[in-house]
């Protein structure tokens, strides 16, 4: 599909994910329900002994904030990447 026809110069918003690792209890909700499969559970332990998630492929993140909303521990949130940051990579 030629995206330019439909969206013109519009670009998908990009998000930057912040994980407060030591607050995580490893329930895995964010990993399972991220629609873009951005997150994955790490093998490392946090201070409580749970496996917190880590950002596997941040480029896929479209700032939908589902992980932020589903996290029962308030341990993950997303900030919007400004366009200049996106261009820089």
């Amino acid at each position, binding site marked *: 599909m030629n995206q330019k026809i439909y969206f013109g110069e519009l670009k998908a918003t990009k998000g930057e994910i912040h994980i407060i690792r030591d607050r995580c209890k490893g*329930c895995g909700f964010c990993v399972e329900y991220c629609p873009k499969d951005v997150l994955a559970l790490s093998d490392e332990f946090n201070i409580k002994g749970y496996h917190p998630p880590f950002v596997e492929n941040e480029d896929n993140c479209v700032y939908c904030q589902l992980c932020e*909303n589903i996290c029962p521990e*308030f341990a993950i949130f997303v900030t919007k990447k400004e366009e200049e940051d996106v261009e820089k990579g």
Partner: protein
Amino acid sequence: MNDEARQKNPIEHLLRMDRIPHIWCPGCGIGTVVTSFAEALRKSNIELDKIAVVSGIGCTGRVAGYIKLDSFHTTHGRAIPFATGLKLANPELKVVVFSGDGDIFGIGGNHFIHAARRNMDLTVICVNNFNYAMTGGQVAATTPTDANASTAPYGNFEQPFSIPYLADAAGASYVARWTALHLRRVTKSIQEGMDKNGFSLIEVITPCVTLYARRNRLGDGLNLLKYYYDKSEIKHGADTRDLDISYQGKLIVGKFIDRERPNFIDAMNQHMSTVLGDDYELYGRINND
């Protein structure tokens, strides 16, 4: 890590961060509902000084302790009468009752019926996890038939309450049911409920991993969310008589009731002005700014 420690979740100004991490188990959905509630507060431009949160006892009863608004943790089952008093003493307040199924429908069932009958202007968020989770997973008024619980080791044989049907029959103005997985719809329903001039009930079905799921061998929080994902069906305006929940059966969710009825204060003002005429001074200062 230093960088992470400095960053703050945007809802942290609504939480008492000195009490976080909270006591809820890994895989429990109450935290998700709290996030949805905080989102609803952020989206609706209600002054935070004008909101009060009341909770009863139980896992969900802890919410009042974690939310950094005017909040009160009442005795078991008495969240709604306390909230009624709060609303009548200060009609400007938006009063939100945030409690569990055991608190609102088990111990405080009678209070719920009467608050809905009077159409008190309250928003009740009922987190339904199908048992009395804090005290060890006893059978509650909402435990589905055939489910195992610590006081029903051979399965529950009682007929559970259908919460939306009860609320509808008692006369609530707004009735919705969602699961913890319907994050944004919960947020929207809470916003609508807070805007509603009357009694609104939002039932949110959440996973109880440590007790309900463990005793019934249903796996962890992810398995229960998958069950909600597979078996929930959105039917707005469905007949509330068809909303029974059977054990691991279909979950019909949606907004079922949204009707206009005079709330308690309006009905009182109207009745008293008719009977007493000009001698009666209208109660409640909501529109007298």
